[in-house]
């Protein structure tokens, strides 16, 4: 690898590492939870209701929804990056290695 490419790759890698190292420290016990969205779906929004068209699927998939809302669409930045950052690393490693880098 030539020098400019190596330098840029190292810069990019160090940036990603810095973010990865920063994430655990960014976790604080004093997380501000606002009443507005933050991407979380409040529990009350998926209680069983016979009058709604989608009641059956909501009932059948209650556990799935609980997992999705609490683990995926939680609304916390840290949780978002837990998905987005590995996706970036996967892309980078996969495509770089695929070209024999």
């Amino acid at each position, binding site marked *: *690898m030539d020098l400019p490419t190596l330098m840029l790759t190292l810069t*990019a890698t160090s940036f990603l590492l810095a973010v990865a190292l920063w994430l655990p420290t960014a976790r604080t016990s004093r997380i501000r939870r606002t009443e507005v969205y933050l991407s979380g779906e409040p529990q009350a929004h998926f209680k069983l209701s016979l009058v709604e068209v989608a009641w059956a699927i*909501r009932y059948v*998939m209650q556990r*799935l929804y609980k997992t999705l809302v609490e683990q*995926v669409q939680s609304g916390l930045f840290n949780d978002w990056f837990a998905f*987005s950052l590995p996706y970036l690393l996967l892309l*980078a490693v996969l*495509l*770089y290695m695929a070209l024999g880098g």
Partner: protein
Amino acid sequence: MHAVAAAPALLVAIAFALPLASLRIRRASFFHGVALLATSVALLLTLYGYTYVSSSGKPLVYRMGGWPPPLGIVYEVDPLSALLAAYTALVLVAIVAYSSWYLGEDSGLPYYYALLLGLESGLLGIYYTGDVFNLFVMIEVLGITCYGLVAYYRSTREAVEASFKYAFFGAIAGLLYFLAAVLVYASFGSLTMGFVAAFSRPVYRLIYGNLAAVLIWGNITAAVGVVLALSLWTFTFKAGVFPNHFWLPDAHPAAPTPISAVLSGLVVNAGAYASIRFLYTVFGVYDPLSEFYELSNYVKVVLLSVGGISALFASIMMVIQSDVKRLIAYSTIMHLGLVFTGFSLGTSEGVRASVYHILTHTAGKALLFMSAGVAIEVSRTRRIPELRAVGRVYKLAGLSIVLSSLSLVGLPPLAGFFSKLALYQAYVESGHFEMVAVLLISSAIALLGYLKVVYPTVFGEPPVSSGVSRLRGPELAVALALLVALLLVLNPPVVGGILEQASRAATDASRYIDEALNAFVDYVSRLHPAPGG
């Protein structure tokens, strides 16, 4: 200046002029009128660009400031980019007409339209540009205007918070794409997409050996893997595809309804277009003549996975939403996931189906947001169980909600059916039957979500009379009727040829490359005319 290049420049000029004009002019009708005029002129210019490019049979290269590629920035407009630009301009005319009804005498009109026209300029710039760095600039123009428009209701916590989240993620995405652009220049020695495309294919390096020897100073093989990783991450963020979708369900509902329609119907398309342009034209990942063809299987697996997960995840999340705009926002994630699965197949049928689905989704989604906005207006709430049956007092709005929902579900004879059928055919022809299952399951689950919106707004309780007084005026009717017409006319006999030309432009990069190289050769030959010439 060529008429095609005039559209983004005109829109930016008017965007800057509007806040200045507001120092002297207070009348709301002035700002509505100027915005409608500007978007209409932009529509005419983009339509002219489309007819020019499609009839000439080759991409148009516009050299900014007269500088030839690779020294200067160029716009390179082919049938794919010209089609998406003209379609964007058409839908924005409907959205500006709707805005004039929705915002009425709002005091923030100069800034609203300044941002909206800036947004349109950014979108057209993304479609037209033939330069990797200029694409970064246009992505930032688009992003910054979007952040401002999401925070338009800046007195509400929801809007400020959603805008902040969008901007935070957007800043990271912009930084990563910027790094990708730097890597492209550090390795290829050029930022012109046509030149990068040429140097990605060994046959062109053979023909233009001297040029390649001067420009290429880095290890392009090592760089392209990282460039594509950074770019695709940014483009999936722009498109709102899993796992980079997190900002979208907050940002789209928090914006004013016409902006929700723009974000969900038009802005996300930029990410899909840029992905197609990079994968097919610039680096030729799916082109056997490209040096990076061996990436095709890896890219296909990753994008099919994220697209499929997006479609399933978002359709499941649609079912539990109680906020109508949030439900429609999840539907956007689902449809863009399907778009990504189409073009990641690596076939011309897949690209054709993806472009087709972009067109039908844009019309359906903009119409659903706008008609749901009418229901929100008369019901004074976004909570689905409390929405009133706007269809009982304003038939066109009710019809729009039904037609747009059914089109997004994929029921015939509406446009969404034909684009989903095209996706289905592309999956089957490439042997990806698992994606057929994803398409059918996500559509079936999403149907439950759409029915949640249709039922109260068409068959529910009628609205109170005080809320319906605003449902008059030609602007609203024109905006809804235009998009309803699009859902009815976007069928294969009408758009088949247009889509064929666009998908051929995407999958066959030779003309795109030739025109960029010719622009350079022409310039040099004029500097040094042949003896006796």
